[in-house]
């Protein structure tokens, strides 16, 4: 049975923070895990943030993991919708 893992990003999903988030996220990936990423603290997002989420999705799929975005703020949701991306958003803030 898959393990559940929940990660909360404590800040924005922008080009200024992605270099900081990515190594931590990558380190937390373990095969056969259901990963929930809480974006409750992410008030802003840009294309660098979207790109990192896409990267994260690819890496989770490669590890047979599932990925869910939780507590997504409207600002973040707006860009995901603009980009027509279905990122497995489970809940909005």
């Amino acid at each position: 049975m898959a393990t559940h893992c929940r990660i909360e990003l404590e800040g924005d999903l922008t080009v200024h923070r992605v270099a900081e988030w990515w190594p931590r996220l990558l380190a937390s990936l373990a095969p056969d895990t259901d990963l929930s990423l809480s974006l409750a603290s992410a008030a802003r997002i840009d294309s660098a943030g979207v790109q990192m989420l896409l990267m994260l999705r690819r890496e989770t799929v490669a590890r047979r993991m599932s990925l869910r975005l939780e507590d997504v703020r409207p600002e973040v949701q707006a860009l995901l919708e603009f980009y027509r991306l279905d990122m497995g958003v489970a809940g909005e803030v």
Partner: protein
Amino acid sequence: MSVAGDDFDSSFLSESGEQLALLESLLLQLERNPDDIALADALLRSAHTLKGSAGMMGLSAIEQLAHALESVLEQLRSGALVAAAVPVSDLLVAVDLLRKLVGSWSLGDPAGLRLYEAECLRVQETLARYTDLAPVRMDAVPDDADAEVWTLELSFEPGVLRQGLDPAYFLHHLAHLGRIVDLKVHDERLPPAAQYQPEDCYLSFTVQLETSADKADIEQVFAFVRSDCHLRMHPPASRQRALLSRIRALPEGRQRLAELLVEVGAITDEEMRRALALQASGAHPRSIGEVLVDAGFVDAELVSAAVEKQADNRARQAGEVETVRVPRESLEELLALVFNMAQVARNVQTQAGRGGVSLQGELEAMDVLAGEAVGTARRLLMLPVREAFRRSHRALRDLARELGKEVELSLQGEELEVDRLQVERLGEVVLHLLRNALDHGIETPAEREAVGKPRCGRITVSLQRDGDSLLMNLADDGRGIDPEQLRQRAVERGLLRADACHSEAELLELIFSPGFSTARDITRVSGRGVGLDVVRETLRALRGDVTVSTTSGTGTCFILRLPASAAQRTLLADGSWLVVDQTQRSIHYKAA
């Protein structure tokens, strides 16, 4: 006083005159053959040329009206409009107005141009009904009704995100130009996790944008990031077709492929610059067309069309018939010189033959050359008679509508050539006789049917050579002239005594008397008694004449005789140019 003084002005005047005459003639043909796409093509080219020249002269009123006309023609050409749905009369009205505007400008009459402002607006409104274009200035933003879906492909240099240039920002701005129908984010370029640099941009995008904007407007959205992004803009199918038509309709002259594509809006200036840079930096020589296609700046189909157009332009320029205006005196002088040369050559030939001197070969060649030179000079002086009928088709069409009649004009032998000067005078004469025939001769369709004639009247003009004269028969199948009516009218006007006896031929001669008319109603067309006397005067001034024969109920035939002009007579009769009288020769010697 004319303002059309310098070469540029007079060149515009002459070119616009040619284009307007062409437009009118093509429109009349289109009226008869509404399905002929080649006509729409030729019309579009002509309107486009006119618009271009007016634009270069800064004549915005003419340019705008030509643009409105061109828009309708473009729709006809693309098949979006059916010719049968657009009354040719509306298009002819635009041509007439353009002619007035050009005329007013050539007279240096800016006040006159302003007088036509309201009329211009009215005509543009009429034309706009066929194209949904509001009659506004040409630089106005296109209406959303024209919106079409573009496909845009975008990728960015890795460093853009670090520079604070977020693709999302620019993509959002596209929405100002229209509606983003679809947007796809491509992440295929994302590297393996170990090589991934989160602050680098790996994403690319495909956007379906519904907009009426053009390529340059779309490119403008990315102006800030232009050097760091790769933008491919694929026009909507309809725009692609329009671009193809625009390429084909381009006026001649522009030779460089990239410039040609920029001019029609197929590529932007920036794309041209980039392609040229790519071409210059390439290891192997490539054509600019290949570079543009490879870079995704333009579709291969458009490049092919542009290449064809280029080849066409070159071919036309190589074989272009240039119209030159030369003083008549110079031509006559040239003719005299050549004539003398030929004469001398023959004399020498004769003497050489007598003395046994072996100059025969060269002299024969000289003779041939001189003969050719005479032929060339002849062509410069002559024009086909059909030129005299240029205004006739339109005039007859308009008059037939005004009078509620139907008529068909057929010309035979119009390829015969006469002196250029005679053509102009003959044009006036012919126009008058044709209008007269339709007004007085041809009956209404109902009247014709009542007497067993076809509804549509017929005017036949046949031309033939008779010695060194030109004979023109202008016959209608109308009601003919009633000599008895002529007699009564002449008696009323005191031209004939009531008890005098006159032959039918004598009575018919009355129609050439000044101020004589049998018309019951004075119309704009005829019936003012100014006309047939002028026709005869004109022909007599050209040392010709006009006579008439008629059969009551069957029709009337005017027979015009036009002798060759002095210059012509040295040249006529199958190049047997030695048939020249002493008087003419002395004139030529004098001129030489």
